[in-house]
């Protein structure tokens, strides 16, 4: 199982680039695609889902060019877009029945799978109610169900936890972990904790460019021994923000506890702490921006 993205670029208008010479090879497991807003994540997702084509470059699925033969991947694809609509007069069963027909699924097994998927995403009790009355979180769960309708080999989910409550987020993360064993999952988000929980591989994208691609442990290694915490007064905080890459701050009774990423100990009372993926992500982005500015 292999997805190969080769020098893919997407240009909007004359001067706006959604993606630029993006190259990546993905195997089975969960690829977490991280990046700030507007980084090009959704553009890449849409290209991989064959909803839009790139301006240049190639994408192949198990050796087949999906730009020329999009149906080769569509048959095994589950796609949850960042924004999608529903038919408000249909209920969940009817909507999924319709999409099962569109995806070319055998009616009887599809019907049983729909029933089970609705239980899985916690919509079975409201499955007969018109979708026009669903909340944002319920629609998102319906979107997850439709993405799993055809038991996809390639599951592409774009900001899947948007609108989900914490309990549902945990359920969805567990589901992704469970699914990833024998298939490929591409999870795009800017919520680092979602990726941290499930990703076996991480790609960081910024300004349409691939900034890093590595397993989580390798990324964590880049900030090993470079993450510090100490407490300072509120008046010292602005200066600290200017001098260091601040990962987080927290108010304490004795001042403000800051967490920074720095090559050397930033203050006499700063202590080295275990890095998180968020620290690694921020450092990666910071280095990319410094490089771009230079």
């Amino acid at each position, binding site marked *: 199982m292999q997805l190969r993205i080769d020098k893919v670029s997407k240009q909007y208008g004359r001067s706006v680039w959604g993606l630029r010479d993006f190259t990546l090879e993905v195997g089975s497991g969960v690829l977490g695609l991280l990046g700030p807003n507007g980084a090009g994540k959704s553009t890449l997702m849409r290209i991989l*889902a*064959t*909803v*839009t*084509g790139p301006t240049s470059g190639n994408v192949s699925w198990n050796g087949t060019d999906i730009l020329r033969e*999009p*149906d080769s991947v*569509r*048959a095994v694809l589950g*796609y949850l*877009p960042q924004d*999608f*609509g*529903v*038919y*408000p*007069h*249909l209920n969940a069963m*009817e909507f999924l029945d*319709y*999409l099962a*027909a*569109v*995806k*070319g*699924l*055998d*009616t009887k*097994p*599809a019907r*049983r*799978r729909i029933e*089970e*998927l609705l*239980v*899985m995403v*916690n*919509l*079975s*009790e*409201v499955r007969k109610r*018109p979708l*026009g*009355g*669903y*909340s944002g*979180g*319920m*629609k998102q769960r319906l979107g997850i169900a*439709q993405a*799993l*309708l*055809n*038991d996809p080999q390639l599951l592409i989910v774009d900001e899947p936890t948007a609108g989900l409550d914490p*309990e549902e987020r*945990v*359920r969805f993360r*567990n*589901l992704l972990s*469970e699914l990833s064993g024998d298939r490929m999952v591409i999870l795009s988000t800017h919520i680092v904790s979602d990726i941290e929980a499930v990703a076996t591989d991480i790609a960081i994208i910024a300004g349409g460019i691939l900034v890093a691609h590595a397993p989580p442990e390798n990324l964590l290694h880049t900030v090993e021994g470079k993450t510090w915490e100490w407490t300072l007064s509120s008046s010292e905080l602005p200066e600290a923000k200017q001098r260091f890459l601040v990962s987080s701050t927290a108010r304490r009774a004795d001042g403000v506890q800051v967490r920074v990423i720095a090559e050397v100990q930033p203050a006499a009372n700063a202590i080295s702490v275990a890095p998180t993926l968020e620290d690694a992500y921020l450092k990666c982005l910071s280095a990319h921006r410094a490089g771009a500015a230079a």
Partner: protein
Amino acid sequence: MSFSPSRWSGCVTVNRVRVIYQLARADFLERVRRYSFLVTLGFTLYFGYLGATGRIVLQLDKYRGAHNAAYIGGFMAYVTSIFLSLAGFYIVKNSLDRDRRTRVGQILAATPMARISYCAGKSLSNFAVLLAMVTVMAVAAVAMYFLVGDHSGFHVLPLLSPFFFLTVPAIAVVSALALVFETNGVLRGGLGNVVYFFLWNGLLLLGVVQFFTQTPHPFLDWTGGFTLDASLAAAAKAAYPGAVIMGFSLTVGSLQDAALHIFQWNGFQWTSEILLSRLFWLSIAVGVTLLAAALFDRFDPARGTPLLQNPFAAPLANEVADSTRTPIETFSAARLVPAAQRFRFGTMVAAEVKLMLKGQRWWWYVVALGLIIAELAVPVAVRGQILIFAWIWPLLLWSAMGTRETRMETSALIFSSPRTSARQLPAAWLAGVFVAMVTGSGCAIRFLLAGDTGQLFAWLVAALLIPSLALALGVWSGSSKLFEIVYLLLWYIGPLHAVAQLDFMGVTPAAIAAGIPKFYLAATIVLMVIALAGRKRQLRT
């Protein structure tokens, strides 16, 4: 710097005029920067070109005015008024809809903006868009004078004043009407588009009545066109005493009017009665805008008619309480029934039919059934008339074809499925054909029983043509409006008014005798190719 609530409350006491101006400006800019505006403007330019090169002729029986500045100005203003009073409505009836769809309305609703300010801004924006088109036509009128005019003298006032006094109040009314339709939950969608078509017809008839009764009444003349016709008829009769003018017509074609008698018309005498009548229509526009403000729900989805209102507003209106909760451990993806690929076209067609009919109220089926029974029961002489109405009844079902994926934002889900063009599109088309065949089934049975193969062939062609037209226009325009307008016009002029060339249903004997259905069969094939090309384009982009 400190935050002061009192200073803030002073800030939100905004100037109403500024609010109206900014609302109108933002809406206008959003519209004119869209590709669709350029297309509309291009069409207006083409229309202006037809006028400027003398390809649109206004005839009063066998008479027409000499092409002096006054006649050209009056004629072009007349054409613009008639054109924009119909097409203009459909062009600008999307202002509130855009704010609903983009959810900007939710933001605006949370501001101190008054409903009257919002509606005034939107009405002004509608007016500005139409005024841009009037300007194009006014420039075309100037060009027409130099291209086909009689060069008897270029007089600016007689040339341009009809645009100002006749067309501008007419488009002000259109702008306000489009807004009031959008503020009403029932008239907001396709039903409103149909209702307006008949309202437009009715209002024009008021003018036609004055022409034939020879009692000009400018206060009944919304577009100002019939005030012009009456004035032209008086000039023609003055030039040709004894001339009998029974009617007037706008003809599109080349200027071959050697057989026409030419008379001089030197323009309007802008009498106080005419000016007051135009002011009257301007005040109607203001009144209709005020009515829109009264009806405007301020994007509150709890107001309006749930089953007829815009589906985009529905989720907030009837949101279902998400109380279902099961423990986190109770499901497993591994336990799911495996999915099996086995595409069945029949299942796909059934799904499309279900999708098409879902949400229809019980009375829709009652009327459809009544029409089928009537097709079976009425005398042969009126059978065609019943079919005409049976095939306008599902208009809104057909007009959703090809646009549903865009309107409901499901295109990413549908288009990422395998072989969409080869599977879903033909299935959607067959669903439309199915609706046409069922609603017209009474006539088909009678044609079969009577062995009337000619009528049956025409019936079949129409059942294939209607969904093809809907799909082609829907896929390319992304909106149901274009089909609603085109089909209504075709239906109104062709089958209803028995113009054989446009009688795609074959209800007039002349159409059957002339073999018109064969042409529409060819058109059906072309339209299907266009629809398929449009869908392939959607899939590529």
